[in-house]
């Protein structure tokens, strides 16, 4: 279980997180929604330790994420970045097997390649993609390679940062389905950030709405439409009028 308690983070005068409280039960899929610049990515990066909160605590299974063995902590995570964040200088299979080629999870090269090809197949890519470089792939294929990399070491927790941004509706549907299947199949805890309401309905068990640095509403995805929360209603229906200012 991941718990964020009263997490604050500011960049200069810009107070991005103003006391975020959120619980993500083990084995569930939490989707965080909210407008651009509301701190969704910062919250996610705080959990991973990529950004250090100014105050508040973040715990994983009751343990403070800033304490203990960092490598062991990170080995429990997989992450799909918004732009894929694939390493340009490495072929696709080495991107996917990055963690399996070095560090504590190191395997023999042939075995790592085999696992990489299997993971590529899992996300719907053919084995001939393995020896290509990321720049030779389309945006959708890069996202799928990123997804394969995120699941390569079979992590307990997977983070997805804007998994469908920049993709056409069909490819978005494919990625959403893949994410849902993989999360269910692996029994992983998932945390996703997105603006895409189709993704929310496809991926989420629970939804949290982040606005002005705090969680405005959280609950099961099935209760989202009948929440009665004006912020959530405006966001999910994409209305210009409401408590969320359209010009920010």
């Amino acid at each position, binding site marked *: 279980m991941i718990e964020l308690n009263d997490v604050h983070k500011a960049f200069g005068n810009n107070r991005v997180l103003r006391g975020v409280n959120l619980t993500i039960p083990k084995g569930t899929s939490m989707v965080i929604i909210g407008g651009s610049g509301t701190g969704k990515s910062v919250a996610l*990066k705080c959990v*991973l*330790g*990529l950004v250090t909160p100014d105050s508040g605590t973040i715990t994983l299974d009751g343990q403070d994420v800033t304490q203990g063995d*960092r*490598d062991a902590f*990170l*080995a429990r*995570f*997989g*992450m799909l*970045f*918004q*732009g894929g*964040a*694939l*390493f*340009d200088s490495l072929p696709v299979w080495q991107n996917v097997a*990055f*963690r399996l080629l*070095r*560090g*504590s*999870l190191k395997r023999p090269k042939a075995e790592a390649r085999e696992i990489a090809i299997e993971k590529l197949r899992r996300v719907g890519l053919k084995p001939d993609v393995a020896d290509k470089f990321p720049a030779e792939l389309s945006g959708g294929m890069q996202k799928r390679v990123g997804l394969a*990399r995120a699941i390569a070491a079979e992590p307990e927790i997977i983070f997805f940062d804007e998994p469908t941004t920049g993709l056409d509706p069909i490819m978005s549907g494919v990625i959403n389905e893949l994410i849902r299947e993989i999360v269910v199949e692996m029994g992983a805890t998932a945390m996703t950030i997105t603006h895409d309401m189709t993704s929310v309905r496809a991926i989420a068990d629970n939804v949290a709405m982040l606005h002005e640095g705090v969680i405005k509403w959280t609950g099961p995805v099935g209760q989202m439409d009948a929440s009665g929360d004006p912020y959530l209603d405006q966001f999910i229906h994409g209305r210009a009028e409401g408590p969320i200012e359209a010009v920010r």
Partner: protein
Amino acid sequence: MSLTAPLAALGRQVLSALALIGHVTLYAVETVSHLFRPPFYGREFLAALIQIGWLSLPVVGMTTLFTGGALALQIYAGGSRFNAEAVVPSIVAIGMVRELGPVLGGLMVAARVASSIAAEIGTMKVTEQIDALVTLSTHPMKYLTLPRVLAATLAVPVLVGVGDVIGIMGGYFVGISRLGFNASAYLTNTVDFLETFDVVSGLIKGAAFGFIVALMGCYHGMNSGRGAQGVGRATKSAVVAASVLILAANYLLTEVFFTA
């Protein structure tokens, strides 16, 4: 505007310069400290060695070749004013190995390598590849910075050594073809007046310059701003900082080696 405003602006600039020196120093210390802490990424080190050392050889070779030739012409023209044309071989050799080889080699590597390292790492930063490295349990300092800094520190002295030889050869070709020197006498004069420490001091300078070049490339890349403009600024800053630091370090090392 208050009368103290210019003073305050100057103070801010000084404080920001001091903070930058502090950051770079800490970055350098952290980089070196990773040398003694596993893991060490040998494959990345070898790739950096080829990129920085082998692929810089043509540009360093061409630079020192033409500089050696021009140096011979200048020394001949200057020396002829007081009948000292005979010093051309020895001055070309000493000038190349003590100063021009390391400084020009360092500056050319700075232009070629510091810029490419800063652009590569800066792009990795803005496309979240550095964050991806962290989430994949890989320390960016170990994976990106240390291999490049170590490779440059080892490769640039070799480049300087090769550049010295090519520069002296440039002077030799000009000496025998344009200035009427006897080939055998030119080589004898070159070797007779050159001391081991002349060469060693140049190689030590090369190592220091290599360290500076890669460190500046990595530091500015890691601290790159967002977008194309941020990466462009990081690249420019890396080359300017590396070049200025090479010239400053050259003066300091020359003081240490030849006036102490």
